[in-house]
């Protein structure tokens, strides 16, 4: 049985007085213990929405309108606020994009770390402090002792993200959701932080959901990939298989858009058009206006995710390899 299973998840936001628009339109996801899953898509595809929905933290006025989120056989959507708080930050942690803004600017690192521990564990101050310093050392923060008294603005971006990771690890969670954990960092730091996350996940057998728009990062870190487009999963499968032989035209487009796929001096590839806003989705497959392989059927029917891809005319391995 998978550790986490999301079934047919819908998230809706009200539009006008009575209408609703869906930001997630039926997403399925499964994750076993220690498994690392990449969730890839353009901005606005609903990746972050999915992360917040898993913790049942969709901001008002949005709501989970349908579906189930089964964590260890328990539907998180059925839990009371108090019960789910015991899971948040304890068994499921989250790492955000920008460590500049996810740490409270007026509280010391130590205060923020101890608070997390004290919210979930009954331990003494001294013990909490010891654990915090231990975790700071685990994420290779130099002179961890003195950093406890530091304020976030006194640390560099990379160090701050390490602190955020240390906070996420404090309670020894089973699952970490990392929402673009390296996007806000310097390129040189990005690889370091990603390597750190990967190392920690492996060592502690923690499952990871890595949300990103960077297929390169996903290829290095994850075992499986899920490609999202306009609130739906369009392709899903083992990382190698998807990178080597994408079947959905969108995945193929994303891969072709990677700069390393283009020879020196050639124009970079771009998928034509942009993702439609959730308020104005086209009929049929949401990707069809940008798709090179569009058929009449694509314009009429919404393809379901069967056999790893949601497409009526998927690429053959031969086509994908070209």
């Amino acid at each position: 049985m998978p550790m986490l299973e999301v079934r047919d998840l819908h998230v809706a936001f009200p539009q006008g007085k009575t209408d609703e628009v869906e930001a997630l339109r039926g997403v399925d996801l499964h994750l076993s213990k220690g498994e690392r899953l990449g969730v890839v898509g353009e901005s606005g595809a609903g990746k972050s929405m999915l992360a917040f929905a898993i913790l049942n933290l969709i901001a008002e006025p949005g709501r989970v309108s349908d579906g189930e989120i089964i964590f260890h056989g328990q539907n998180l959507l059925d839990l009371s606020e108090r019960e789910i708080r015991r899971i948040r930050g304890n068994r499921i942690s989250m790492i955000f994009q920008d460590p500049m803004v996810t740490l409270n600017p007026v509280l010391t690192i130590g205060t923020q770390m101890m608070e997390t521990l004290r919210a979930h564990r009954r331990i003494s101050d001294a013990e909490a402090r010891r654990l915090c310093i231990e975790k700071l050392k685990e994420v290779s923060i130099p002179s961890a002792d003195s950093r406890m008294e530091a304020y976030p603005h006194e640390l560099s971006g990379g160090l701050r993200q390490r602190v955020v990771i240390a906070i996420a690890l404090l309670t020894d969670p089973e699952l970490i959701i990392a929402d673009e954990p390296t996007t806000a960092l310097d390129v040189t730091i990005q690889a370091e932080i990603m390597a750190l996350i990967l190392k920690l996940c492996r060592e502690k057998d923690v499952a990871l959901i890595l949300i990103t728009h960077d297929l390169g990062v996903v290829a290095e870190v994850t075992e499986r990939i899920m490609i999202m487009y306009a609130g739906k999963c369009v392709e899903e499968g083992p990382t190698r298989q998807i990178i080597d032989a994408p079947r959905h035209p969108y995945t193929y487009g994303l891969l072709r858009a990677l700069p390393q796929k283009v020879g020196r001096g050639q124009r970079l590839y771009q998928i034509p058009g942009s993702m439609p806003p959730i308020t104005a989705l086209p009929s049929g497959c949401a990707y069809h206006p940008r798709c090179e392989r569009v058929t009449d059927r694509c314009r009429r029917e919404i393809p379901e995710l069967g056999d790893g891809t949601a497409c009526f005319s998927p690429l053959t391995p031969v086509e994908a390899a070209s």
Partner: protein
Amino acid sequence: MITWRGVLSRFLGDPVAIGAGVVLLVLVLMAVFAPLLAPQNPYDLMQIDIMDSEMPPAWRAGGDERFLLGTDTQGRGVLSTIMYGTGISLLIGAGAVVVQAVLGITLGLIAGYRGGWVDAFLMRLADIQMSLSTLMIAIIVLAIFSAGFDANTYADYAIFMLILIIGVAEWPKFARTVRSSVLGEKNKEYVDAARVIGLPPRRIMWGHILPNTLTPVLVISTIQVAEAIMTEAALSFLGLGMPVDRPSLGSLIRSGFEFIFSGSWWITFYPAMVLIALVLALNLLGDWMRDVLNPKLRRGED
């Protein structure tokens, strides 16, 4: 980022701030140590002699060196009554602001964080409270209070009543300020992060959001102390504030007011000057603090 060192260096570089700070410090010290410093104890009937009444300041003809600033109609030294009176005024001002802050911050935090109908309800309540002037509420309540109890009970509890009334009547100022800051803060990611950590809303409100909204709270607190002192003075002037035998600055001004035209101007003049100095110093400090704490007005050096 604001540091104590930065604030201190800004303070020392601003003559207006230093002036206001010194005036306030002198007045506060004078009030706190009044029992040690004052030439007489105006509360001690044994030290008061009706024969000393309405003496002019010491340097004028008919003055007495025991009473530097002259005496009032009951023979109390004006200097001594000012020293004690400033303390009472400050106590009421500070006490009222504590009441305002506790009420206003709590309700403002809840309104801003919860939003929805809770917010709408609390803010309409604030609107209603704001539409009734503080003086009007205070006059009604104090008039009932002073009519309902005998003079001695009134004298004993007047200070608490004033603190409570001015405190309750002015909570919307704090509530609105805090609420608007909370609205700005609550969508920041550190709040999301705190929720993801699994902290209960109470801890997020008080532990995470409140410390980020304290800057404006600090500024209005200072200004509100001045405001509360003025309100108390106005009420005392109207005869609804502190009783004559435990005078605040307002009651002192009132007690001498009737004698201005008979030539005994000093009974009113000196307490009024002290009141003006006190309120002015508080307001100047409040303005200075607002400028220093406002990141948009901050200069490069700190």
